């Protein structure tokens, strides 16, 4: 008696990859560490932003209080005044009870701070405005007339970076980093798991039982699912974090496009994974991996930098190139430079590339499997007699 051929061997392989990851301590530790770092960084940004926005300025009289009120009004920050006796102000600043002290002197004002980094520009500005107004009134001049014609409006020339584009740039950067990090860590792990199977020779049993193509697809699929899972966890934490900061107002803008980022991440990652698996098959021992994965690491670096350096025509062309498109196309969609038709074209190109990568990878894989010493070079991998 024997059993029928499994209907989806690639899924059995993928499931094993997933289970192997899930039972790995290192996987959970790295996931938790990143989540903790994310939460921590948002927490500190939140604290820092709030502490910078809120400020109490010690004053000695009504004029000082008015200056502070003016500063609060013009800057929109939460700046409070607190009236103290003049001889206590310096000590209060030094003790940190108040962030700054504003004291009138014979020829002007002293603004006391205990650190050059204390953000008191608004208060300085307010002092100047307050005094100009007061002097004008004393001289019988309308303060508005005095200010007339001094209004400066900043005008930008050339192609304008709109708010959407700025956000696209930032998100693009974030995604480039995410893509780079995941592709590198997971890529190396895929390559490593291939070499380990070669080293332990289980690969001989596997390839005798299942076509190499299925092994490769299963490996790529399993790891892609895990990478996506991790990415979604990080994104969820990230989105919740952002919604708590002042950037939260940009979220509705991002929402429709985050889908594109995920789709492109998915396809780009999977395409790259096929190449990683193939590079793994070219090495015999884990130590050889550095040599065989180097070209891919360089490609990744290129993708990473292209992600936020490419502009104009270069960016437009690169946005169709498989793998690079994963980083550039979503940005262009977000900034409105590309349409969904471009996106679909880029996706189709990437899928074609993926199919080719799987075929090439399977070929290298087959040839590499019985190579038990040294590194398989490309010429050997594709020569006819294998």
């Amino acid at each position, binding site marked *: 008696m024997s059993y029928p051929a499994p209907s989806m061997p690639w899924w059995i392989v993928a499931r094993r990859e997933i289970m*192997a990851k899930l039972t790995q301590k290192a996987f959970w530790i790295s996931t938790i560490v990143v989540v903790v770092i994310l939460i921590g960084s948002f927490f500190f940004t939140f604290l820092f932003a709030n502490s910078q926005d809120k400020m109490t300025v010690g004053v000695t009289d009504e004029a000082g209080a008015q200056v502070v009120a003016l500063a609060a009004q013009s800057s929109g920050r939460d700046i409070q005044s607190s009236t103290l006796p003049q001889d206590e102000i310096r000590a209060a600043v030094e003790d940190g009870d108040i962030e700054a002290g504003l004291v009138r002197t014979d020829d002007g004002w002293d603004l006391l701070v205990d650190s050059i980094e204390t953000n008191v520009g608004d208060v300085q500005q307010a002092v100047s405005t307050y005094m100009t107004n007061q002097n004008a009134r004393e001289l019988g001049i309308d303060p508005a007339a005095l200010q007339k014609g001094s209004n400066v409006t900043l005008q930008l020339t050339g192609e304008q970076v709109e708010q959407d584009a700025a956000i696209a740039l930032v998100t693009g950067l974030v995604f480039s980093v995410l893509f780079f990090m995941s592709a590198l860590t997971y890529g190396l792990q895929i390559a490593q798991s291939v070499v380990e199977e070669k080293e332990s*020779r289980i690969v001989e049993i596997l390839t005798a039982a299942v076509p190499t193509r299925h092994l490769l697809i299963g490996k790529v699929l399993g790891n892609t699912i895990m990478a996506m899972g991790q990415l979604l966890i990080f994104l969820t934490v990230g989105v919740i974090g952002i919604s708590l900061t002042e950037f939260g107002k940009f979220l509705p803008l991002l929402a429709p496009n985050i889908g594109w980022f995920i789709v492109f991440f998915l396809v780009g990652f999977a395409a790259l994974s096929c190449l990683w698996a193939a590079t793994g098959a070219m090495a015999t021992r884990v130590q050889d991996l550095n040599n065989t994965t180097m070209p891919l690491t360089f490609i990744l670096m290129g993708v990473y930098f292209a992600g936020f350096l490419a502009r104009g025509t270069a960016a437009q062309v690169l946005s169709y190139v498989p793998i690079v498109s994963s980083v550039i196309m979503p940005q262009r969609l977000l900034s409105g430079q590309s349409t969904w038709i471009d996106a679909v074209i880029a996706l189709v190109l990437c899928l074609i590339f993926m199919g080719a990568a799987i075929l090439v990878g399977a070929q290298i894989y087959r040839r590499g499997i019985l190579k038990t010493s040294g590194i398989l070079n490309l010429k050997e991998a594709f020569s006819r007699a294998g």
Partner: protein
Amino acid sequence: MLEIRNLTRRYGDLTAVDDVSFSVEPGRFTGFVGGNGAGKTTTMRMIMGLLQPNAGEVLWDGKPITTRVRAQFGYMPEERGLYPKQPILTQLVYLGELHGMSRSEAREAAGALMDRFGLGERTKDKLETLSLGNQQRVQIAAAVIAQPIGLVLDEPFNGLDPDAVDEMFALLSEFTKRQVPVLFSSHQLDLVERLCDDIVILAKGKVVADGPVDSLRRAGETHHRIRTESDLGWLRDHAGVQVLDLDGAEASVVFADVAAEQAVLAEAMQRGPVRAFGPTIRPLSDIYREITR
């Protein structure tokens, strides 16, 4: 039936396997013997489709072997292959599933095999924590878990103690009883002699002998041993007798033909009681040395 026809494999200038042909009959143990570098592993890899032959073919029931047929084989590679850092049960179930078993079937079969090998308590242990002998048992379990239609085992008994060898042999015998052909390679000639029905001897990539173990042992010149109660010196002068060894009342000889044999026996009986007279069964190792010299 598994037939190997004119398989040839070259690595550069070296011909590792040179026009090798033999067959593995259903329900028979075929021992594959040869020194290091004789081409055993290369031949087995070509049978399993892991290496492309430069020439020749592998047939299953008279037709060229297909990927599907190979997928139903049980295979044990030379350099043992399983995941060292994974629990035993997990990987056996995985391999079972890849061979088309359902998860529950694979689980059941793996559990039964492990119980049988006395590893029932350790199914959740990582492979690398097991002794080498036990790892070897798991490796054999991996080859047989999915009820293979053929077995190709590269040095399956390496590193097993005599009890374990018997245990594994009993397991494999269950397959030969069901007419599964079993090909296994080994360095241990005494083991091959004891366990195999057929034998294929490979030297420098070529088949130098092949056939049932019994007939191989009888091949070539047959030695006869004679033991009587008086000196056998007269044998030296007897026609048609070549004396190999003579020690008083005991001798080892080669007869030219049956007539000479019968004449010597008659004369010996005439001279006194004959205690022993018959062909000596030569150990396989003798034959091996003679053939591969």
